[in-house]
């Protein structure tokens, strides 16, 4: 069974090579088909392996395949080994499943683009790298995937290179990711130094009870966390993700929503044992996660570019996942990772369909009333919006609720992480429905000469499939409180650490759990309601007022006061906060910092260049300077 593991990565690699090297001999359409077939192949192999995994007893669910002994000398032993366990199974299926739909969708979305072979080549290369990342058993291979996906992301963002801004967006993504990678590499070398192995499974075996300094695990996990933060766009390294939306929308869906950005979460869960030995890091992860979730959600409320809203929403949801793993609810984090991949890919592809239908328009202010023009897109998007808002019955509800429950029991009761988490849930519902109403309802605000049209079926079919997944994806993990058996949690249990706290251990937590579920549902519905009031009802009301003016004035004024009150007490502060966060925190502080450091390095580079005067005697003086330095060092030392 396990000897077919390599096929998972082989297919996309072949696809990449064919599209990359033989590109000039194949047609545009063949190129897309080859790429899609490659991913389909991986999907089928992964699915078959998953079935094989399920056929085994829980504690024996692991396939490994030694590809080759990379460096087997003495105490230096590095094997290239793939590992297929429940965690990998979830990740591969998400990557290949969502990836396949996005490949197919691209057939329509990218039609006619001159660089389509290159596009598919990189998309396949990305899939290959991402699969390596999740299949790797040792850190070097994981790092290869890690760097590889970053590289592909960099190349794909800059895909439409004619645009100066897009090229710069690629650069920013690149620089921020490098900061994160520094942490990763140093952690890797430290771990290797400590344990003499880079295999994560061996490391886990040696970690417990290892004779290390008190801070070793804290330092190493913090360094890994820096890497995870960079890749998963968390505070303070999140600025690159909104800019990365410059890439084609399917790329945003695949790389910047469903797969690559979740690599940070995956990394933490994969090394959950190391992290669980470092409580300080865990607390940091939770804090960073919840703060990111909350801040990004407030920023999303005022964005007017449809993709930017989704980008901040992605950051916010990734924050949710970080929060989950930070409080020790590792399986909940992965559960949300999966459901998020479904509904966020759906939302992005839906947004892509809208943009496609409006000939490239991305401003929410120029949409509206598309419900009947694009019915397929409308319904599927609605499902995505409902799922992300945590409306009961859809996938997002189950995963979000498990995270909130994890946060609640983390400190045995109400705590700030849980509170911020639940507020974020409300905000999420609010801004997602704001987006929904602004796009599909209300008066049409697009210019008269555009004729919005439904996208071709090659694009709507993936949307439909994703919509099913967004609904049904949650049912693999129905919590016990709702009468389910939380299959998902039990499935992952052998590979992740579970936390035990007082409440979780209490005999009957069901009423409490149900209560919390009710609370979060109410908060979400509240968010939906206010979005409805402000973005759906009020504009209509304003028109009415304009027509009838005085007679209904009192009534409308009363209503207006309600809204005014809401505006003043709830929305305004949030909007202010949002603007503040966006303006100060994001644009000036972080963005400014990144840009400034890039600029100052470039300036430094210029200064050093000027030293290179071309004059021999200047060079000789520098040599003499070096001589003097060495002589001084020797006399002093």
């Amino acid at each position, binding site marked *: 069974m396990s000897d077919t593991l390599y096929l998972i990565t082989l297919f996309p690699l072949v696809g990449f090579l064919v599209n990359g090297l033989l590109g000039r001999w194949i047609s545009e359409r063949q190129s897309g088909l080859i790429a899609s077939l490659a991913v389909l192949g991986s999907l089928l192999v992964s699915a078959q392996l998953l079935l094989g995994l399920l056929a085994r007893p829980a504690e024996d669910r692991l396939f490994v395949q030694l590809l080759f002994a990379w460096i087997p000398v003495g105490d230096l032993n590095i094997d290239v080994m793939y590992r297929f366990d429940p965690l990998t199974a979830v990740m591969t299926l998400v990557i290949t499943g969502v990836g396949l739909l996005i490949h197919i969708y691209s057939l329509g979305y990218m039609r006619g683009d001159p660089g389509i072979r290159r596009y598919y080549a990189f998309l396949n290369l990305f899939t290959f790298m991402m699969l390596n990342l999740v299949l790797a058993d040792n850190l070097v291979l994981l*790092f290869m995937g890690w760097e590889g996906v970053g590289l592909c992301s960099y190349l794909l963002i800059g895909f439409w290179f004619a645009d100066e801004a897009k090229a710069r967006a690629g650069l920013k993504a690149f620089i921020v990711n490098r900061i994160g990678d520094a942490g990763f590499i140093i952690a890797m*070398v430290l771990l290797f130094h400590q344990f003499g192995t880079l295999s994560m499974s061996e490391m886990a075996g040696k970690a417990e009870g290892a004779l290390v300094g008190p801070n070793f695990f804290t330092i190493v996990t913090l360094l890994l966390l820096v890497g995870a933060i960079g890749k998963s766009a968390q505070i303070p390294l999140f600025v690159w993700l909104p800019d990365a939306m410059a890439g084609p929308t399917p790329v945003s869906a695949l790389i910047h929503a469903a797969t690559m950005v979740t690599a940070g979460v995956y990394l933490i869960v994969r090394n959950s044992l190391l992290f669980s030995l470092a409580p300080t890091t865990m607390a940091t992860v939770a804090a960073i996660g919840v703060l990111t979730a909350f801040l990004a959600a407030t920023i999303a409320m005022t964005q007017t570019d449809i993709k930017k809203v989704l980008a901040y929403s992605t950051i916010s949801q990734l924050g949710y996942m970080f929060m989950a793993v930070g409080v020790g609810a590792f399986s909940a984090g992965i559960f949300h990772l999966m459901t998020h991949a479904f509904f966020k890919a759906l939302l992005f592809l839906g947004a892509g369909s809208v943009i496609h239908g409006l000939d490239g328009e991305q401003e929410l202010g120029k949409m509206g009333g598309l419900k009947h023009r694009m019915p397929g897109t409308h319904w599927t998007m609605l499902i995505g919006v409902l799922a992300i808002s945590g409306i009961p019955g859809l996938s997002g509800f189950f995963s979000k609720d498990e995270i909130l429950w994890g946060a609640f029991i983390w400190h045995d009761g109400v705590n700030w992480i849980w509170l911020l988490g639940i507020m974020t849930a409300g905000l999420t519902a609010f801004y997602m429905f704001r987006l929904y109403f602004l796009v599909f309802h209300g008066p049409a605000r697009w210019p008269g000469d555009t004729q919005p049209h439904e996208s071709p079926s090659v694009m709507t079919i993936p949307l439909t499939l994703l919509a099913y997944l967004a609904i049904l994806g949650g049912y693999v993990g129905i919590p016990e409180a709702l009468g389910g058996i939380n299959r998902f949690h039990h499935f992952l249990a052998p590979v992740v650490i579970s936390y035990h706290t007082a409440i979780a251990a209490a005999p009957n937590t069901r009423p409490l759990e149900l209560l919390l579920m009710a609370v979060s549902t109410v908060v979400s519905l509240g968010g939906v309601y206010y979005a409805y009031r402000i973005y759906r009802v009020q504009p209509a009301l304003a028109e009415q007022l304009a027509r009838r003016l005085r007679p209904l004035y009192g009534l409308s004024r009363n209503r207006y006061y309600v809204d005014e009150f809401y505006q003043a007490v709830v929305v305004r502060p949030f909007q202010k906060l949002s603007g503040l966060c966006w303006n100060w925190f994001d644009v000036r502080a972080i963005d400014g910092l990144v840009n400034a450091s890039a600029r100052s390095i470039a300036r430094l*580079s210029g200064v050093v260049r000027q030293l290179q005067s071309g004059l021999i005697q200047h060079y*000789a003086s520098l040599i003499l300077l*070096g001589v003097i330095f060495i002589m001084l060092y020797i006399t002093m030392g």
Partner: protein
Amino acid sequence: MNAADILSTLPELVLTVTALGLLLLEVMGKPPRARFVWVALGGVGLALGLEFAVPSEGQFYAGMISVDLFTRFFNVLFLTTAAGSLLISVPYLRRTLEERGEYYALTLFATVGMMFMAKAHDLTITFLGLELLSVSLYILVAFYRNRVRSNEAGLKYLLLGAFSTGFFLFGIALIYGSTGTTHYDGIRLAIGSGEQLSMALTVTGFGLLIIGFAFKVALVPFHMYAPDVYEGAPTPITAFVSTGPKVAGFAAFLKVIATAFAFTTQHWWGILWILAAITMTVGNITALRQDNLKRMLAFSGVAHAGYLAIAIMVGSADSAFALLFYLAAYAITTLGAFGIVSLIEGEDESGLDMDSYRGLARRSPYLAGVFALIMLSLAGFPPTAGFLGKFFIFSAAIDEGYTWLVIIAVVNSLISVYYYLRPVVAMYMQEPADESAVAVPAFIVPVLLLVVLVALGLGLFPMSLVKNSIAAAGSLF
């Protein structure tokens, strides 16, 4: 001198005779010049074969040279580099109508110099090897008499090289003055037994010795010549200059440290620490703003010297092995990089800027693929050989407790990715100015294959090189 002595330097002798023969053939004007390269390659091939067919081990010529796995490792590397640079040169020389016997002869002489640097077991031979290498390279750099830039590069290389040689020699004089010998073992014995004039004198001498090596391998601040020389030299020579002397310099440096000055580490490790740190930083930061590929690769070479200096400083068997592995990967990939640069280069030294690489992936996908692979290897992306080299060096340094230096190195290698990816982006993400494919002469093909074999092959299956480097490094310690 006896038969064993001669056998121990047979490859060098073969190369010398070949080189002299080429000089004579050139002035006799007998066979067509197009055949010279085959004579030269035949000499290199014979030397390579003899390296394996007639292995020797031990000290020869009254202890002046020592031959072991270490020297064999480097001889193979030098000969491969020489063969690669010869192959790269042919199309370039023919295109510019400068194919002359001296060119091949000088390349071979320089190779002999490198080989003696690795084999030297006495500072006299180290010095002679270094100078045989340097003088040959001075001429090669200035080989294009009618190009002002080539002249200027040659003059800079020569004047600064001679200047640094002065310090190098003064260092040897002081070491000799203090210990009474120039023999590696003798020096170690004198230091170990305390039978030296004064430790201060010896260490001062060693400090000056560092300058000579630092110049050859281009450590900051002794690196200033490198970018100018690399840019001004004819591109195939740049390929040779950026690999040969660097490898030979590090080989001799490592051998001197491991055999003669092993007991003095505490007096000078700080020098190399600081030199390594500033070398990496200056090299990488300056490379960021270079548009000329040759200059960019020159600064990249400076940065790599910084990483390698870490391995020299650490001075453990592990770091020596890492150094050897890294050098092999670096030398071959850099050679290939300049080989491709020489192909893209147009008439009158045009076509060296980043824009000339636009859309290369569309024009010549295989060439672009190899170049991208080289860039990724130099940048240290897994699973390339460049990544492994860095990984070995960094972990050897961490093992000896140089954590901060490794952090500096990691941050540096991350900065470096930016400029290594610039040509990749240009090749893959930008539109070509013209669609015509780049002609790839048959001479270059073996070099490109070798590059792929090393960069990717050794990245995926590094065992053969790892084993050999460990054995080679082991014979030093």
